[in-house]
């Protein structure tokens, strides 16, 4: 019973893959790791347009939008998702944007300027991702 009463702090994360690459192993592993860290992970599957992802983020009222791209199109796709989210009032001030994939450091810097608070590349520990989320979600403006 204690489990079902109040769970105001339950963190909800959207894990999505924009673009056309179908390599969803990484996204699924991250989804599973965040679940095991006690979070509720909404997984939307592959080949999502920026609008589809933003729409899911809106309806599910998530704290975190975590994106994965392995095709190299991250500089193109990630900012478009952020923009589609912004159009719906979902901004880096109230939602954490995370990027994942094979992303060079200089690209990661560019992405951070567009609203991503962190980028996780190959070799990132799933535990670190969960820890990062837990540390930064309380800083969001959820009023």
């Amino acid at each position: 019973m204690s489990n079902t009463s109040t769970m105001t702090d339950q963190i909800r994360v959207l894990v999505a893959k924009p673009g056309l690459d179908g390599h969803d192993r990484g996204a699924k592993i991250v989804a599973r790791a965040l679940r095991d860290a006690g979070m509720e992970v909404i997984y939307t599957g592959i080949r999502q347009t920026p609008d589809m992802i933003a729409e899911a983020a809106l309806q599910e009222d998530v704290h975190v939008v975590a994106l994965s791209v392995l095709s190299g199109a991250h500089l193109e796709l990630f900012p478009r998702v952020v923009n589609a989210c912004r159009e719906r009032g979902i901004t880096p001030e109230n939602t954490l944007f995370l990027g994942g994939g094979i992303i060079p450091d200089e690209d990661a810097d560019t992405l951070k300027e567009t609203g991503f608070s962190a980028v996780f590349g190959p070799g990132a520990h799933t535990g670190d991702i969960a820890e990062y989320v837990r540390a930064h979600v309380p800083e969001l403006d959820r009023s």
Partner: protein
Amino acid sequence: MTTETARTTNTQLSGRLAELEQRLLDKDRRALARVLSWVESGDQRGREMLRALYPRSGRARTIGLTGSPGAGKSTVTNELAKAFRQRGQSVGIVAIDPSSPYTMGAILGDRVRMTELYSDSDVFIRSLASRGALGGLSAATQDVVHVLDAYGKDVILIETVGAGQDEVDIAGAAQTTILVNTPNMGDEVQTLKAGIMEIADVLAVNKSDLPGADRMVSALKALLSLNPDRGWDPPVVRVVATQGEGTDKLVNACDAHFEELQSSGRLETAELERARQQITALARANVLRQLHSADGEERLARLARDVASRTSDPHSAAAVWLAGS
């Protein structure tokens, strides 16, 4: 015998909540999403919003979908949503997946089968984790449905956790319950012993392009013929949800059931029963919360000592504990 009333007083919200309520009623989807989060988490603001919105609910048609994991509930839900949209009705979807009993985390993956609905702003999908509830729904499912209803959704589809044999809460939560079966789901005894068979108003045999579909259909029909007469014979409908086959028949079956509920007067009695169940569940949760408060735990510890030392007995102690809550 005194008559009790529970008329809701002061449904006026103030300040930011009033503003959010207005945005929700103006069909602001983001406001709806936030209110649903509060309602789901048992937040005080959610309770106040629900109190204000509740009088506006009661107009939507509710259809529940249940069945074992992998039977195709999400895909069937997706097909039904499309069919209702084609009629010009707006659709809300509540999709429930299980929480881990160990970490309380969850993967909510029902949306994967519904991506074609994302571009339609008249479809609102909300994924819920069961958060420890055992009946195939989550504790807040009814409240989430009430809010979607008040928002103005015409049809609300409720997809349960992949359910086996006795997760039957959906029957109390929705007006029409669809049980999604597939061919070759084990021998007939599995179906025969399932409490879930008794709650179905409509049976869908999904993936009916697979071998064994005919046998499944006739087995279900034979089993249904043994059910006590409820004034409604649940139809068995063959569908292939991934191809959109049979969706029209399924919608027709739901319509027929709804019409029967209306003409027989059972729509009202079912609504009363739903209200009864929700009051009971909430009251039970409240009592448990009070009993397990700091004060309640202290009294429990004292009573436990009395019972252990034989100065009291368990039944008397339980009565004392409850009376003082």
